């Protein structure tokens, strides 16, 4: 047992801060808030051009010699400054899946360009009629020579308005059971048959509904076997869960604790002097440490060549449920101050905003119920409770 992972990161922390001071425009944070777009094309292009996106990837597919620990430190620093990199997060998931399952031609066409920051890929799994039951997708893809012709619609196609490609879960066979007729295609979003409509959310994030009529995808951009899409999804979903790197900098609990050291409570004394406040914050700190450790385990399993499917589900389940416990406690702790948004509130309204965005964490990326089923079936060996179909 050796939990020293932060030492190599610590070395790079200073360099990462310097990088962000030089390159990150503070106005980008406001831009992200007003647009709800969790992707900054300027930043993304820069990260690609400087080889940060390609850190740690195989050289034959465009990997660079930038140290992955340095790249991680930079990403965490970007997160600490309040910017999200959803475009890279989804691109990375799909690129990893491509390396696992796609043809050499597809790997060469997509992965190096993705690592240079030129290709941005978003996820097209969810449809208006299917989310948790992702294998129930109805989007049709029909073969026409060397191409596939795609018709249907996708819901919650986040970042599609900023991306070049969408990773589409399509139905290529209606004669077989639902898991057996699926195929993944990588479609271009600038195809004239694609329409992207904004969808606005409680946490401020803009996502999209996307519509596809006779969109053509070359067979070379089919990812995995025809009708073998469920196997591809199992790989892709593992890359989705538990892989999120926490932003660097103080956590929300640490920020509130620092604030509570001087902010007066109802009796005029600092809030942190109130033992019930101290107890609640300590409890939340334990939750955060547990979440951090579960994330460490995911990375450790992955780094030793394993597929952290169960561990990733556990991490996702724990951290999303913990987030909701946390915002509930923190808003109550701040009382009337928690009502104030933006610069009107303490910590620039971080707690008010946290309450708005918390609900989504247990829904997207596989809901808590779906995560629990994975843990119940695969870790505990309990029987499948869902209807088979």
């Amino acid at each position, binding site marked *: 047992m050796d939990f020293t992972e932060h030492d190599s990161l610590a070395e790079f922390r200073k360099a990462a801060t310097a990088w962000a001071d030089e390159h990150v425009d503070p106005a980008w944070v406001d831009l992200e808030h007003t647009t709800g777009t969790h992707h900054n094309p300027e930043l993304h292009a820069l990260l690609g051009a400087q080889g940060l996106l390609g850190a740690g990837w195989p050289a034959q597919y465009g990997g660079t010699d930038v140290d992955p620990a340095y790249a991680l430190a930079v990403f965490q620093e970007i997160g600490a400054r309040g910017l999200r990199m959803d475009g890279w997060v989804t691109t990375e998931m799909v690129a990893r899946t491509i390396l696992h399952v796609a043809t050499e031609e597809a790997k060469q066409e997509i992965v190096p360009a993705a690592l240079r920051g030129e290709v941005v890929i978003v996820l097209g799994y969810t449809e208006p009629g299917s989310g948790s039951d992702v294998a129930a997708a109805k989007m049709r893809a029909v073969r026409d020579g060397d191409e596939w012709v795609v018709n249907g619609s996708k819901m919650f196609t986040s970042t599609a308005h900023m991306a070049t490609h969408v990773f589409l879960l399509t139905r290529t066979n209606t004669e077989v059971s639902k898991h057996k007729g699926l195929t993944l295609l990588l479609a271009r979003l600038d195809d004239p048959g694609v329409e992207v409509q904004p969808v606005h959310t409680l946490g401020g994030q803009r996502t999209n509904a996307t519509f596809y009529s006779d969109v053509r995808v070359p067979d070379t951009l089919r990812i995995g076997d025809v009708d073998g899409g469920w196997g591809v999804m199992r790989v892709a979903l593992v890359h989705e869960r538990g892989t999120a790197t926490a932003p660097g900098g103080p956590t929300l609990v640490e920020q509130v604790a*620092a604030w509570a*050291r001087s902010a007066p409570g109802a009796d005029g004394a600092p809030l942190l002097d109130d033992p019930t406040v101290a107890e609640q914050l300590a409890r939340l700190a*334990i939750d955060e440490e*547990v979440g951090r*450790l*579960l994330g460490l385990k995911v990375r*450790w399993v992955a780094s030793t060549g394993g597929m952290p499917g169960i561990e990733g589900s556990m991490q996702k389940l724990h951290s999303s449920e913990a987030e909701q416990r946390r915002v509930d406690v923190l808003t109550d702790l701040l009382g009337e101050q928690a009502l104030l948004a933006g610069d009107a509130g303490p910590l620039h309204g971080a707690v008010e905003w946290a309450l708005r965005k918390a609900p989504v964490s247990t829904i997207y990326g596989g809901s808590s119920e779906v995560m629990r*089923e994975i843990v119940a079936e695969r870790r505990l060996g309990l029987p499948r409770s869902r209807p088979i179909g």
Partner: protein
Amino acid sequence: MDLSLTEDQQALRGSVAELFEKQATPERVRAAEAVGHDAALWRVLVQSGIPTMGVAEELGGGGATVSDLVVVAIEAGRRVAPVVLPEVLTAAALLAGPAAGADLLAGVGEGTVLPTVALRPLRDGTAGPVAGAAVADVVVALDGEELVVLSRREGVAVEPLPDLGGAAIAEVSTAVWSQRLVLATGDEARRAHADAVSLWRVLTAAALEGLRQEALRIGVDYVKDRHAFGVPIAWFQTVQHRLADLATAGDGAELLVHEAAWARDAGSVKAAALARMALLFAGETAFATAAASLHFHGGYGYTLEYDIQLYYRRAKAWQLALGAPRYELRALAADLFAGEAA
């Protein structure tokens, strides 16, 4: 970062797991409940060098790291072994510090001295209920400015107190424990005691973690086997989801226990805070798991015949030996949040 046990630790785990499985069967656990101590098991532990395994080799101990001790405590916890192992290991660590403890430490190694530790400092001559004190020969305690070893005069008996977890509890007061040997004084005494209690937190967290793993296994096996409405109760989603939540928290507890041990071995500045976190979270998770596991046994879980009640009671009892968790939480908040400048 390497989250796996070393080869030596795996071997250690294998041998202690076998030892406790054979020597701490549910029958033996039940038989020892009234006294809270299984003397035959204790002798086997002494033969294996376990009571002093954390003591430096120069002092006649096994030179084990805290991470190694955690491996042993997890296996003891898994079988709810009827010995107060965290207390014994902690007391041995305290005796190993000052020269004055040397003879007693040798006695612990030979099995002639059974030690325990008073986790709370004496106040007005009493430390309140102390686990192991009903069977111990000596109690290491902090009394004001002094770290002392308390013992009884020839012929003075202790009164065992009936308790929740069968932990050989007795009140430790200087009226009964009237003989004292001073190990250290002043800051040195306070520091040694605080550090030992921190070690106890890690070891007790480890024991709770072993208990938790077995409580979960018992529950999972039961729900796969028991049928209702024509299906195994494991088929019901509410059963599955509660067990999945507990398994998830359990992975977290396991990691936190190992991290706390690692932090002590590495001399990390976070060691004290992580020890508190480990105890609080391992305790909470162990109790939630044992309680759910008992619940999913239905009425049978409430009978004394099934083993899960043994786990349910100890899951709460082991942690509370230190006192109410709210004090731990407040102290943790001070560790974490008070240090930095406002």
